[in-house]
């Protein structure tokens, strides 16, 4: 670990590049732990209310669009793949490939957000936004069904805001990559961002079944 590129990026308070990289990795994992607790509060609220009002949740969850949800899940999994490939490209020093995969990740992420916007709009049209004008045609126990939609918007909204922050950082990474900042010896930002992106993906992997799938059988 003493290539000039790596050494150039070692900040003054670290002894060497290895120590710096270790610190970044641990730091990122700890950050993801805090993110887990952040979403954890919402998951806890979801489980408590689902347990209390199973019928309301079952009927309300049937209002989500399974097809759109499945499509978005696929898009997000693909973006995780392209992100993993981008990290690999950075590790082997293939600049063109790195940029290509980063752009692909950005496009897939944007596609996800676009579809999500459409879904929100759809909910808006159908008055399925909790609040004064909330309506839920065909929902059982609509007094409690609105809780499902409250949680739906809080959970997917928080998830989407993480995606937006991620997309912003991706643009920054693409610019950095174009400038040739990343080398096989030092591409920590790409690697750390990869962890973040996979984390968002995993959160969705839990959200999708909880919000879209779990009560389909109830019909």
């Amino acid at each position, binding site marked *: 670990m003493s290539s000039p590129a790596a050494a150039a990026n070692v900040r003054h308070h670290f002894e060497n590049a290895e120590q710096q990289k270790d610190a970044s990795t641990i730091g990122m994992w700890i950050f993801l732990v805090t993110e887990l607790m952040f979403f954890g509060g919402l998951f806890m609220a979801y489980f408590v209310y689902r347990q209390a009002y199973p*019928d309301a949740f079952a009927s309300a969850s049937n209002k989500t669009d399974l097809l759109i949800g499945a499509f978005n899940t696929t898009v997000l999994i693909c973006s995780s793949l392209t992100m993993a490939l981008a990290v690999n490209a950075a590790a082997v020093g293939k600049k063109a490939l790195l940029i290509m995969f980063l752009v692909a990740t950005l496009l897939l992420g944007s596609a996800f957000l676009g579809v999500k916007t459409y879904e929100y709009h759809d909910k808006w049209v159908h008055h399925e936004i909790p609040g004064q004008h*909330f309506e839920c045609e065909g929902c*059982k126990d609509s*007094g409690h069904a609105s809780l499902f939609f409250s949680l739906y918007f809080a959970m997917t909204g928080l998830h989407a805001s993480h995606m937006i922050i991620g997309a912003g950082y991706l643009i920054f990474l693409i610019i950095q990559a174009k400038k040739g900042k990343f080398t096989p010896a030092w591409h920590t930002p790409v690697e750390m961002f990869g962890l973040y992106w996979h984390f968002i993906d995993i959160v969705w992997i839990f959200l999708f079944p909880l919000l879209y799938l779990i009560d389909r059988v109830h019909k």
Partner: protein
Amino acid sequence: MQAKPFELFPDAASSIAGSVDGLYAYMVLVSAFFSLLIAVLIIYFAVKYRRKDDHVPLPVDEHSIGGMILEIVWSVIPLGLSLVMFAWGASIFFTESKPPADAMEVFVTGKQWMWKIQHNEGAREINELHIPINRDIKLTMTSEDVIHDFYVPAFRTKADVLPGKYTTEWFRPTKVGEYHIFCAEYCGTKHSGMIGTVYVMTEPDYNKWLAAGSGEGSMAEQGQALFNQLGCGNCHASAFNKNLGRCPNLNGLFGTTVDLKDGTKTRMDETYIRESVLYPQSKIVAGYDDIMPTFKGLVTEDGLLKLVEYVKSMGTKNGAQMSAPPLATETSATDAKTGTPAKAGAAKTSAAPAVNVNRPGNQ
């Protein structure tokens, strides 16, 4: 309530107060012992081992004074003493949490910033609670707005009063007198004004007080009037309707366990009745369709308590207590009686549910 002289210990006026004070005495003794032990040791060491000059003595090896043994001793002894506190406190708590079955029932509705109290016999009072001595009293409580807490220090007990559910609290007063009621859960601007007085009276005095009370009829009678006014009897069998088969017959149902449509069971209690009136679709009894409309916004918390009491009175299938004639409409009239704030409260409860308007024709 007359002013009291300066004192350092509260009145003990309930059956539970003695055991709470006993536990308190034990805890004060344990705490005083350890506080003094630590204080004396620190002062003694600070004086005895105070550095006299700049000479630094060679430190002692901690193992020479049995470090490990000491650590175990001062972990295990406090643990033992505190587990006694736990067990003692838990046993008092169990007594406090389980109202005796034959307790006299009183209904409490908290709202910003007053206590509305209804006696089973029909008497109503605001910020005052008259009760007889040496009788178990059970409060069934709910709130019209925010969280309150019904606290009587002289009885050493309190319980939160929540919107949207019923909580209970019980005590057995043992000393005639007047005692503070406080709201102990912060509830807004006039939180410190949400206070009142408990009057513990001798049995004859209490009966005299009851007799002088309002002639609105008992809680169950008022509930029955409301039941008819809301048209509940059109479907639910009551003394006046025969069971039409579309809705569960409420006679003799209270306190039983009913099977629900989704295969689970639930106990037919105060909370279930309340939930069924406000959210009829959430727990449907097996064998029935969800045809009941919600009464959210149409019935106040006071009214709900009366309905609950009426359904409870159907506990026995004997129609004796159903023979009371239907009374005039009660809901808004009784509220107006309690003074202007009650109106504001009623407006609030009817305004809030508008958020979730649930059409009767939802099926």
